């Protein structure tokens, strides 16, 4: 991710007061009290072969941990969670539970409110973390070393599991802090910087090393000049470690490829959110913000801009039915006063020195494509200009293809690293997981990949055939 600073202009809003920020960015899933947790846990039916567990990418035994909360055994509940998912704290807050565990809860079929699984999970994991109760320790030393590239959810989960299995693990994190999306990507009203730091500390306490501000590069010329940041050569890692896990996520936001994109108030959503998280929301946005794209990242950027005081308009070239953002995220955005404008394609960002507006074309639906999405066609003469002061583009993120190409023998598929069921790449020493393998999914998917990749690495280093 790269950082772009927005120049102060009159078109930008002042940074809101601390108290205003605290209020507008307060957690949308506040912690449950012990009493609330008991009441909610008591509602759980304790399904056999539970649909919630089946829907969890990390396969947490959800009815069991809820029963443990119900029997006033939060320590046992936390162990049940962390055994499957060491990042259970962040997953409790950032998982789209409405489409995963809670979406699968059988209560939905009774037209009853599903169990508040995310918040119950948060209750148990917070209990363990706040009381510093740890369930895992370094395994018997194998005298083998593994390098993990990327200190995000996949990398942390992988490093933790490898440490349990007895490996010396070093995590290389390019940014100031480990945590990946939890530190720099998810919305702060779901997971704060303090939450992210607390979780990284809890997970890494087991005894693996995290080298922050350390970018792994393919060639020496990429080394930075900053004395604060370091670079490490991939070749050196290959020599020093028995296996390498690639968990570096995705790259920069994809450019739109339209004129005006280089104006100062045009920003990628990933970069915008990175800045927001880095500055603890103390950033300024345009009075009128246009967000291009209608995925979940677009919605996050739109809601965050709105919470910073902007009038926000989301533009999407297809229809509401086609947008990839979850319905509950869209509803959340609408509640934050974000406006949606469908069947609109931006053709140019207007402005001489600063963003003044977005030139758009109206589309019409001409049919349905083979993926079930609307086929669209621009309507001749429908051009219009939407005035605004800032544009955030959120039409996906680049894959770090250039870096991957520097690893000989790595096979890519649509820019994603190809792995076998043990998360081993086509270069036997390299394993991979998370967004760089699945193209960008949830934190919980990355955790499951990292955990399972660690087990794959273990089998590989034990000499078992993967």
């Amino acid at each position: 991710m790269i950082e772009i600073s927005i120049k102060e202009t009159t078109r930008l809003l002042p940074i809101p007061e601390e108290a205003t920020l605290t209020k507008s960015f307060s957690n949308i899933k506040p912690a449950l009290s012990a009493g609330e947790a008991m009441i909610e846990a008591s509602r759980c039916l304790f399904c056999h072969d539970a649909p919630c567990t089946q829907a969890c990418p990390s396969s947490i035994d959800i009815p069991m941990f809820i029963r443990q909360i119900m029997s006033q055994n939060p320590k046992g509940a936390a162990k049940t969670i962390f055994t499957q998912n060491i990042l259970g704290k962040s997953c409790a807050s950032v998982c789209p539970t409405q489409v995963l565990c809670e979406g699968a809860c059988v209560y939905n079929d009774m037209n009853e409110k599903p169990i508040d699984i995310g918040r119950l999970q948060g209750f148990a994991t917070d209990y363990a973390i706040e009381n510093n109760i740890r369930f895992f320790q370094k395994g018997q030393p194998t005298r083998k070393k593994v390098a993990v590239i990327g200190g995000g959810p996949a990398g942390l989960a992988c490093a933790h599991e490898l440490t349990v299995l007895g490996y010396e693990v070093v995590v290389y994190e390019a940014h100031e802090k480990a945590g990946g999306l939890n530190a720099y990507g998810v919305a702060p009203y779901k997971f704060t910087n303090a939450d992210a730091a607390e979780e990284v500390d809890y997970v890494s306490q087991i005894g693996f090393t995290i080298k922050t501000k350390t970018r792994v590069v393919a060639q020496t010329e990429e080394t930075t000049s900053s004395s604060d940041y370091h670079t490490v050569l991939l070749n050196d890692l290959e020599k020093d470690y028995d296996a390498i896990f690639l968990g570096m996520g995705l790259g920069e936001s994809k450019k739109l490829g339209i004129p005006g994109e280089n104006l100062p108030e045009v920003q990628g959503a990933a970069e915008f959110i990175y800045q927001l998280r880095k500055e603890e929301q103390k950033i300024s946005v345009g009075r009128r913000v246009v967000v291009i794209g209608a995925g979940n990242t677009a919605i996050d950027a739109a809601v965050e801009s709105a919470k910073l005081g902007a009038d926000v308009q989301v533009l999407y070239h297809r229809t509401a039915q086609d947008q990839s953002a979850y319905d509950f995220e869209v509803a959340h955005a609408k509640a934050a006063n974000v406006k949606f404008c469908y069947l609109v394609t931006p053709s140019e960002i207007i402005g001489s020195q600063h963003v003044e507006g977005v030139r758009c074309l109206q589309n019409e639906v001409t049919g349905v494509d083979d993926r079930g999405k609307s086929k669209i066609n621009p309507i001749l003469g429908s051009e219009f200009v939407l005035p605004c002061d800032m544009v955030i583009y959120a039409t996906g993120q680049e894959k770090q293809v250039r870096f991957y190409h520097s690893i000989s023998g790595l096979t890519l598929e649509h820019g994603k690293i190809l792995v076998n069921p043990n998360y081993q790449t086509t270069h036997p020493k390299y394993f991979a997981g998370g967004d760089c393998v699945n193209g960008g999914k949830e934190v919980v998917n990355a955790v499951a990949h990292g955990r399972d990749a660690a087990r794959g690495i273990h089998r590989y280093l034990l000499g078992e055939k993967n």
Partner: protein
Amino acid sequence: MADLKINFAGIIAPNPFWLASAPPTNTGYQVMRAFEAGWGGAVWKTLGQPIVNVSSRYGALNYKNDRMMGLNNIELITDRPLEVNIREMKEVKERFPNHALIASMMFETKEEWHDCIKRCEDVGVDGFELNFGCPHGMCERGMGSAVGQNPDVCEKITSWVMEAATKPVIVKLTPNITDITKAGLAAQRGGANAVSLINTINSVTRVDLETFEPMPSVNGYSTHGGYCGPAVKPIALNMVSALAAHPDFHLPISGIGGIETWRDSAEFILMGASSVQVCTAVMHYGFRIVTDMITGMSDYLDSKNMKAIEDLVGHTAHRVKRWEELDLNYKVVAHIDPGTCIGCQLCYIACEDGAHQSIALQEGTRVPAIKEESCVGCNLCSLVCPVDDCISMVKVNTGKEKLVWAEHPANPHQIAAIH
């Protein structure tokens, strides 16, 4: 609209809903509030020789989110002077002449019993209830359940009371006994006009896992207390049925034990009670619950085309049989409605681990399938199912005549007869 007025062993009351002798009937203030709320009668907190109470006094059994599924108390009889109670009873009777006011009593000597009966009758009480059931504190002094557990003593003391009483006498029975009918028949022999049951059940509510104290705790110690509340209802229903169906027992029964709604009341009445008494539900929610009991019971009687409470009494009593009288050729099997099944599979695991392995999981759906050939019709799946009416127990026509154990070929006595 049905008339809820009752004549219980000669005690007239506007409805069958009475307050049991307990903390809610401790004072005239409370009883008058209860009558204003609509209760048909009240059994005054037991009168007797002076006692002293402990602090704390109650303990509760909670189940998940439900508070006070069961309530235990180690409180004794009234701790207020007799003359105060008598004065307040007089005031209640003057202000509510048409409501049933019953004096509960517990004494040691015949003279004490006679003296109190006279004083109560002088202020116009409608009847008496003899507390032969209190399981703690008083029995150690030879009263309460110490009387109820010994049929001869029960009969004798009842007969003492009958010598003096001109108003109807109800004997309150303890459930802390192997066969409730023995105590009931003793009361009948002693001349009682009615019985009421059940009194509370011996219990210790729970143990505090931090302090290891039994609860309720009196400075770290507890004692066996009397258990009541919704959890005891099945025990009470069984005991009511045992007396109601006993061929030699003919007295009216006032049903007590976990009654909270008109539905609970109707069940006791169907089982043979002709009035009901409530305590725990009032201690939990207050007197106003009676509003729903009155309207609910009235509507229920109307829906059954019944004109009065007495029309409902006892329809179920004779349906509680000895096991060997049940038809062994009657068969039901479970049926799952796939339309309302939510796929929790609790029925599957309950049957697999806790019953008869007669439910199978199916490929491609979360709706389990009943193995009808091995289903014994135990009901368990329908009991654990969280969806109303999703699992029903369907009668299977076996084409066989009724067969009871006495005539069953597997009965050893039958086998012996054949050989």
